[in-house]
């Protein structure tokens, strides 16, 4: 029952947020689109000229683009599989009666609150260092040769670090969803003689499907733009082995000063993210209705 006056107040009150967000998104995005059609290098100022889609042609046919797209997809895909599967297992575990469960839960979700630069440097040095790292020592205990993580399997190393950080996110959300599962339903199924495996597949998993979708979509948005972990450990290397699209755009813009090329890359990243965003927004929009 909103009167005209209250509708007006409502508009006035929500306007500032909408306007600043619009400025924050639309203006720079418009500029990025405009730059992406220019020859524009910060090292040769005043030489800007319209070159049509040439930046896109260069960016998309650059072998670095293909490599970074592959790396991006591998990174996002692997972290999603690890965190969702791990999140379900850990969620089920923490849903059981355990001695000191509250404290245990705190320990499991802690990695999510660690800042990305700390995460990356602690893993790279304290754990994964091929000479003095914890993993090298463990390998030597087992009589195995130490792995030189960031030289031999750099992308895997990044995937492990990022997964460790995002696993608690999945656990937190899936556990919340698990706790809203109707116990009676489970008990009824047990009475009918359903084993734990069929209860999981016919009751628990369908109940979790929406939460899993949310985890997948939100993680994808963030994982498409992993930056700090790469920035402080490998710098995209060796070669292009750990360059994802976000990092490629960064190197083009702030290291090679190629504004035009970086802008084209930025737009490609926006398009990739939007493919995921559409699904997420639809899902959340549906949720808003009920």
């Amino acid at each position, binding site marked *: 029952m909103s009167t005209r006056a209250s509708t007006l107040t409502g508009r006035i009150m929500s306007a500032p947020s909408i306007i600043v967000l619009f400025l924050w998104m639309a203006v720079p995005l418009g500029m*990025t689109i405009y730059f992406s059609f220019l020859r524009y290098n910060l090292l040769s100022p005043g030489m800007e000229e319209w070159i049509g889609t040439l930046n896109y042609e260069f960016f998309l046919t650059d072998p670095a683009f293909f490599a970074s797209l592959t790396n991006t997809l591998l990174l996002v895909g692997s972290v999603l599989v690890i965190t969702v599967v791990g999140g379900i297992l850990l969620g089920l575990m923490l849903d059981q009666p355990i001695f000191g469960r509250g404290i245990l839960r705190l320990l499991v979700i802690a990695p999510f609150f660690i800042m990305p630069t700390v995460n990356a440097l602690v893993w790279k040095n304290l754990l994964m260092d091929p000479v003095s790292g914890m993993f090298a020592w463990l390998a030597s205990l087992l009589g195995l040769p130490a792995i030189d993580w960031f030289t031999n399997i750099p992308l895997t190393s990044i995937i492990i670090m990022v997964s460790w950080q995002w696993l608690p996110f999945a656990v937190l959300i899936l556990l919340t969803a698990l706790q809203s599962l109707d116990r009676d339903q489970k008990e009824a199924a047990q009475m009918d003689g359903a084993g734990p495996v069929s209860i999981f597949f016919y009751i628990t998993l369908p109940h979790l499907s929406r939460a899993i979708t949310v985890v997948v979509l939100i993680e994808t948005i963030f994982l498409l733009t992993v930056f700090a972990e790469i920035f402080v450990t490998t710098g995209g290397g060796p070669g292009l082995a750990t360059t994802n699209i976000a990092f490629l755009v960064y190197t083009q813009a702030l290291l090679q000063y190629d504004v035009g090329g970086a802008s084209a890359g930025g737009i490609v990243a926006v398009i990739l993210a939007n493919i995921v965003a559409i699904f997420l927004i639809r899902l959340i929009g549906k949720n808003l209705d009920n």
Partner: protein
Amino acid sequence: MENKQTPLGYISFSVFAWIVGLLIFFPIFWMVLTSFKSELEAVSIPPSFISFDWTLENYAEVQERSNYFKFAMNSVILAVGSTLVGLVFAVTCAWAMAFNPTKRTKNALLWMLSTKMMPPVGVLVPIYLLFRDWGLLDTRFGLIMVLFLMNLPIMVWMLYTYFKEIPTDILEAARMDGATLPKEIIFVLLPMAVPGIASTMLLNVILAWNEAFWTLNLTTSDAAPLTAFIASYSSPEGLFWAKLSAASTLAVAPILVIGWFSQKQLVRGLTFGAVK
């Protein structure tokens, strides 16, 4: 999975769960432990778990050599500043959307959400150039604005879901008694909304504190927060693990505590109300 509650089952499952939990927590534990070692002990093989000379000198040295508190102060200013600015905008906006909804409210909310989906690299170049031209590079003001705008959609959404749960009958009653709009907000709505506002603030502080794309790209020294300070350890000189660990422990400790306190409310904010 469905362990029948025999004492043995309970104990063995607990032991198993604690082993898994401790393994996940191990990197953090190891970081904290290493921060109390000497640099030589930090790299010694086999690593020592308890039997080393516990020392606080790394903490002192981190402050002495690199003025740690300047960076910590920047982190506090950026996190708190962006949260407070965001709160002013988000509370009014979410209040209007929850209590005076129009036909367009839903679309406005979803549109706000869509701005959060934009990858930062998509606007890195223009923001960088604008900041350079306006003299905002490496300033706290500039970064507060960026962090505020980045998290505004999340704040509006989270507050919206909380405000939605406040019974509107009470507002009607207050209006009947002649409460004006500002009074209605201050005396009726805010007290009921405080828990929601508090969790929204905490989530925003966490996100702003850990933000590591804009803080790395838009700062060099003056406005650089802890994310950038820790990143400077990526090109080290000599032995640095113990100092890195000490600096890292200090950098993550406050957020870890805040995060632990607000873990349940985080789910709502991080999933835009889709999972409660």
